[in-house]
């Protein structure tokens, strides 16, 4: 079987051969190239049928103003002539390109021409370079305007030249001898970009850019640092997150719908948007959708996709957390993932350099969808619980080591006691001396848990303090860092407490919940584990008790 090969017809105003190899390397496999005669741009466009040895399925036009309109350009430079005629000629070239794409039904990749090299850019001759830049802008505008609505992908050769630098891109020796104006590295880069543009033809562009909040949209953990404490603003390192947000707004202007997907209390996020308005670039109006709750990110992304009536392959998801990214990778393979690094310079650059939305266009439908989303998301309850979150957890190989903290652990235990707001049943704060006394006490037991999974260790992240009476044990403190939420760590520690209580002869385990502004997520912690309500915020369960999930391996110190 011989698959039909895609013929790429190349029309160039200079010798195109050095572009061919890199272009084919970047274009879809099974492509081949057919070249039109060099610098016959108009003739080739007017008569595509007979300009190529093989009829092209796709067309590439690479051109420079000085090659195609040299005499008129010279006249403008030397005699300062009215550029109106030149502008109309360039518009007509654009019209030809649009016509080819429309009438032949051939997708076209066309370059925006670079600023003419007729006058070398001289920093000390600013008037000339500004005059040339203005003309260039007018001609580019005329060209794009002439193309009109047509399946034409524009590749900005002028921008590519700026990226490389004029001195590194041009080779006047090659230009004079071979009509090849570019150095080999630049020609390779140009060919690659053109090939990539060809590859993107017909490919669906992502529509939604879903971003995490903590250590992504801003630095720090909102639940621990508070709205005042998260890092974002004008000075270092908050300016890295401002730059990140600027990049998001830029992507939104280029067709991406921005969605916030965060494990936080919704009210806390609102608090940041209000209190830190001056430090943030992004505002609620930029967000097409929000999913701020304690569901898994994969479930929330799927719910967003359903809501928007899009496939998950329309999503790009940015997060700093390998575990979240991996769950999405496993459960929603179509989602494109972007890991947000820790270094401020990486954070600052990452949204500006996203290439996923480069060919996106903002349609009226998209804009309508953004508005619709604002209304919808205001109404919606939290998404349905995760059907296969358990499967993901099982893949994590979570190990929880539960132990009695010694003097060396008191500092970290105290820190967690005073810092943890969200997963904290009673929010009782204690200082080092109090913790040390409890560790030494016979009437109390202090539990600490270290967690690790196949991505690495999280350190000491959970603490429980239990008052031990003969018949009933009472959990006075139970708290856990946000970093290990929804992994089953809380069940591991509760199971250890229940087992110890049973062994000691107790028959009842008691717990309490003291609501605060931050800890609503644990309001139903005890009822969900079979405890019965015995009073306002008071719960108890008969021993023995079984709450441990299968996916968690528990290590006890002897």
């Amino acid at each position, binding site marked *: 079987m011989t698959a039909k090969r895609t013929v790429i017809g190349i029309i160039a105003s200079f*010798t195109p051969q050095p572009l061919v190899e890199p272009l084919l390397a970047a274009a879809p496999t099974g492509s081949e190239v057919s070249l039109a005669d060099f610098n016959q741009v108009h003739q080739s466009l007017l008569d595509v049928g007979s300009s190529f040895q093989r009829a092209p399925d796709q067309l590439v036009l690479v051109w420079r103003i000085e090659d195609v309109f040299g005499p008129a350009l010279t006249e403008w430079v030397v005699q300062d002539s009215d550029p109106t005629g030149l502008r109309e000629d360039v518009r007509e070239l654009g019209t030809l390109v649009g016509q080819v794409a429309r009438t032949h039904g051939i997708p076209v990749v066309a370059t925006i021409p670079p600023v003419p090299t007729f006058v070398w850019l001289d920093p000390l001759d600013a008037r000339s370079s500004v005059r040339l830049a203005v003309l260039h802008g007018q001609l580019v505008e005329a060209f794009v305007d002439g193309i009109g609505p047509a399946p034409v992908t524009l590749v900005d050769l002028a921008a590519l030249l700026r990226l490389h630098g004029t001195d590194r891109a041009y080779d006047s020796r*090659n230009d004079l*001898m071979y009509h090849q104006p570019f150095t*080999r590295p630049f020609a390779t880069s140009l060919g690659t970009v053109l090939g990539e543009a060809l590859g993107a033809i017909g490919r669906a562009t992502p529509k939604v850019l879903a971003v995490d909040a903590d250590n992504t949209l801003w630095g720090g953990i909102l639940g621990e640092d508070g709205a005042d404490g998260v890092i974002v603003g004008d000075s270092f390192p908050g300016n890295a997150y401002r730059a990140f947000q600027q990049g998001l707004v830029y992507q939104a202007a280029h067709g991406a719908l921005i969605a916030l997907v965060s494990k936080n209390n919704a009210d806390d996020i609102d608090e940041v948007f209000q209190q830190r308005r001056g430090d943030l670039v992004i505002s609620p109006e930029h967000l097409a959708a929000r999913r701020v709750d304690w569901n898994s990110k994969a479930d929330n992304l799927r719910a967003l996709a359903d809501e928007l009536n899009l496939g998950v392959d329309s999503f790009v998801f940015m997060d700093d957390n390998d575990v979240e990214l991996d769950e999405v990778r496993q459960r929603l393979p179509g989602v494109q993932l972007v890991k947000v690094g820790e270094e401020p310079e990486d954070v600052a650059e990452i949204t500006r350099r996203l290439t996923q939305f480069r060919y996106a266009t903002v349609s009226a439908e998209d804009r309508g969808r953004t508005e619709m989303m604002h209304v919808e998301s205001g109404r919606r309850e939290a998404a349905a619980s995760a059907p296969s979150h358990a499967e993901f957890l099982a893949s994590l190989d979570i190990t929880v080591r539960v132990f009695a903290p010694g003097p060396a652990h008191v500092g970290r235990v105290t820190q967690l006691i005073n810092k943890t707001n969200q997963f904290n049943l009673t929010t009782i704060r204690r200082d080092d001396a109090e913790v040390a006394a409890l560790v030494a006490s016979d009437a109390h037991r202090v539990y600490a848990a270290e967690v690790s999974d196949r991505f690495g260790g999280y350190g000491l992240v959970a603490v429980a303090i239990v008052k031990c009476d003969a018949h009933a044990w009472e959990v006075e403190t139970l708290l856990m860092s946000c970093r290990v939420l929804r992994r089953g760590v809380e069940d591991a520690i509760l199971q250890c407490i229940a087992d110890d209580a049973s062994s000691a002869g107790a028959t009842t385990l008691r717990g309490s919940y003291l609501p605060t502004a931050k800890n609503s997520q644990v309001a139903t912690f005890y009822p969900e584990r079979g405890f019965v309500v015995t009073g306002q915020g008071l719960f108890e369960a008969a021993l023995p008790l079984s709450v441990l999930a299968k996916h968690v391996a528990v290590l006890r110190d002897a």
Partner: protein
Amino acid sequence: MSDRLLDVFSAGLKLPASELSDDTSPSNTSQWDSLAAMEMVVLIEDAFDVRLKTSEIMKMRSIGLARTVLRGKGVEGI
């Protein structure tokens, strides 16, 4: 030992090195057209770490003359 210059021309002209000699020139080798010349300039510059001027390229009307130009530029071992 292989001749490095013949190897470069072999790659540029897409001909076996065994068919090339110092007498090989555009007039007796149809593959040596302007596109191949452009390609060989890049290959020669990369292989011998030199930068060729247009006048030097114009003198390279055969492989032997290319050898002479390169030796004149201080390239050793060819």
